[in-house]
């Protein structure tokens, strides 16, 4: 028990949680935007793979780090455009399109990797983002190390969450996007372009997912491996529901989930680790997420028009 408190009170533990949470924050914000506009984006896992590859490849071929992030963003937006075109104006099944895009994005990335780097070796490394201690803030006890000695991309994740919250809840554009997810007919009746808004949300959201992927190759690590996204996209889908489609709560969910993850890594080395199989630790964050959902369950928050296609003038 005291071991648990020691872990929970250490700055390095929370620093790890924030690091682990960062890619989830980007991608979950992306998913949140899509779902707020009424589109479930199951392409998230594949789009993260694309972003991880594109950002890393861009830097490897000579671009700067931030331009690399931009390339990742653009690659995600390209797949977002495909997703949006199929699901919004054509109103096709969001399940098939999403899973299909995950398959397409993943395999296309691997194919591109093979063609770009046919010689088999350890994948090359890039000069990834280094941690940057924010002067002043990083000297604060506990939070200084946990929050303010991260890489710039982690700071960007938090800024993104704040920006998403601001745009969604404080601007006319955000209102229109949210209304698209609640009742697209109401949006159309105000003369606003539902199709354009939904497509835009999916494209931008997909771009953020790709940046989440790029975090893995440009900040958490410094090269690209197949399958390294490893289910993080699916977690983000859960995080959005956990966060009741609100950016703040979703961010909190991401940090909590990451904290569970960081905790299970550490608990494996305690006495518990000798008693429980390692799978129990790996499963803990998922089981705790489900339990958290049961405690929090508030179904009313689901965007009413989520997964409901809209065509103007249809009965």
């Amino acid at each position, binding site marked *: 028990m005291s071991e648990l408190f020691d872990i929970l009170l250490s700055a390095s533990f929370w620093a790890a949680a924030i690091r682990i949470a960062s*890619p989830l924050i980007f991608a979950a914000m992306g998913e949140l935007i899509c779902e707020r506009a009424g589109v479930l984006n199951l392409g998230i896992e594949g789009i993260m793979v694309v972003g991880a590859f594109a950002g890393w490849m861009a830097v490897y071929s000579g671009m700067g780090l931030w331009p690399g992030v931009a390339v990742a963003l653009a690659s995600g937006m390209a797949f977002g455009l495909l997703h949006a075109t199929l699901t919004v104006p054509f109103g096709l099944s969001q399940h098939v399109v999403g899973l299909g895009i995950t398959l397409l994005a993943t395999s296309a990335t691997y194919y591109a990797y093979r063609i770009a780097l046919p010689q088999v070796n350890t994948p090359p490394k890039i000069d990834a983002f280094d941690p940057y201690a924010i002067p002043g803030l990083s000297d604060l006890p506990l939070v200084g190390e946990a929050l303010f000695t991260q890489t710039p991309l982690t700071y960007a994740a938090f800024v993104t969450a704040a920006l998403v919250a601001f745009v969604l809840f404080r601007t006319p554009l955000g209102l229109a996007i949210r209304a698209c997810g609640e009742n697209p007919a109401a949006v159309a009746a105000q003369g606003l372009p539902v199709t354009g808004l939904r497509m835009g949300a999916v494209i931008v959201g997909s771009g953020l997912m790709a940046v989440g992927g790029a975090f893995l190759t440009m900040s*958490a690590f410094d090269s690209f491996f197949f399958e390294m996204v490893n289910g993080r996209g699916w977690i983000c889908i859960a995080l959005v529901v956990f966060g009741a489609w609100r950016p703040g709560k979703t961010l909190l969910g991401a940090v909590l989930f990451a904290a569970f993850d960081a905790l299970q890594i550490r608990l494996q080395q305690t006495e518990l680790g000798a008693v429980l199989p*390692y799978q129990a630790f790996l499963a803990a964050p998922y089981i705790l997420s489900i339990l958290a959902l049961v405690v929090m369950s508030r179904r009313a928050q689901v965007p009413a028009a989520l997964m409901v296609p809209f065509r103007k003038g249809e009965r």
Partner: protein
Amino acid sequence: DGHGPIKVAGIYTVPVEQQWVSRIHIAAEAAAARGDIEYEFTENVANTDYPRVMREYAESGVDMIVGEIFGVEREAREVAGEYPDTAFLMGSSFKEDMGPANLAVFDNYIQDAAYLSGIIAGSMTETGNIGMVGGFPIPEVNRLMHAFMAGVREMREDATFQVSFIGSWFDPPKAKETAFAMIENGADIMYAERFGVSDAAQERGVLAIGNVIDTQADYPETVVASAIWHFEPTMDAAIAAVKAGEFTAADYGRYSFMDRGGSSLAPLGTFEGKVPQEALDLVAEREAAIKAGEFSVEINDSEPTSGS
């Protein structure tokens, strides 16, 4: 020997960057470059599809198929039985006598080198606390961890080990986080079974021991020693057997042993002169004994756990 190149096909369940598979793939490419074989391969094959791919290659007339059948032992033997003219050289948990006459088995028996790398680690650790991050606790991983731990104990009887499995072959960020946690928990040498572990060691200024492949070039200040698997002896022996028409069920695992050149300790490189002489002496002594067949490292395939 008057023979033209034979046709060899590789079938792998993971992409060829994966450490274990990369050793086979590189050996095959080397043989192809020498002109001994014509080589093609299929990667990332799900075990569900594995027998089909085996059969497709066999039907297409390749002389030898190399790959890994840990997850499809039974079905793979069925297919091999149907193509008696094709040689199957397969990574497998079983022994040769369990299958058809044209299926030989191998595995990465590089415990000798892992043991020697452990001796070096034992001499370099100050805290006596060593972190080990693995993908899954399978025999190919476990036996090397055990051998490494045995090596460490030669120098530090009091050493303690932190062992974790991340449940994935490819998740360097996760492996890195796990390593960070171990370093925070006192480890000053990391056993890098997965990508990502050496990175954590490098960032935190502790040391790492490599495994299967040599990554010192990427981490010159960090990776002290590595136990390397050389698949070439296995591959070359199998090619020769096929060319001679003598390929039969056999355990090629022996070719991975140190005395056959199947494994080695990577050169100290950047750590030349930084490892205590006492350890180097023991390494030299044991290496000679191993090669002379006077010393053998225990092969222990059970899951290692944290502790001393």
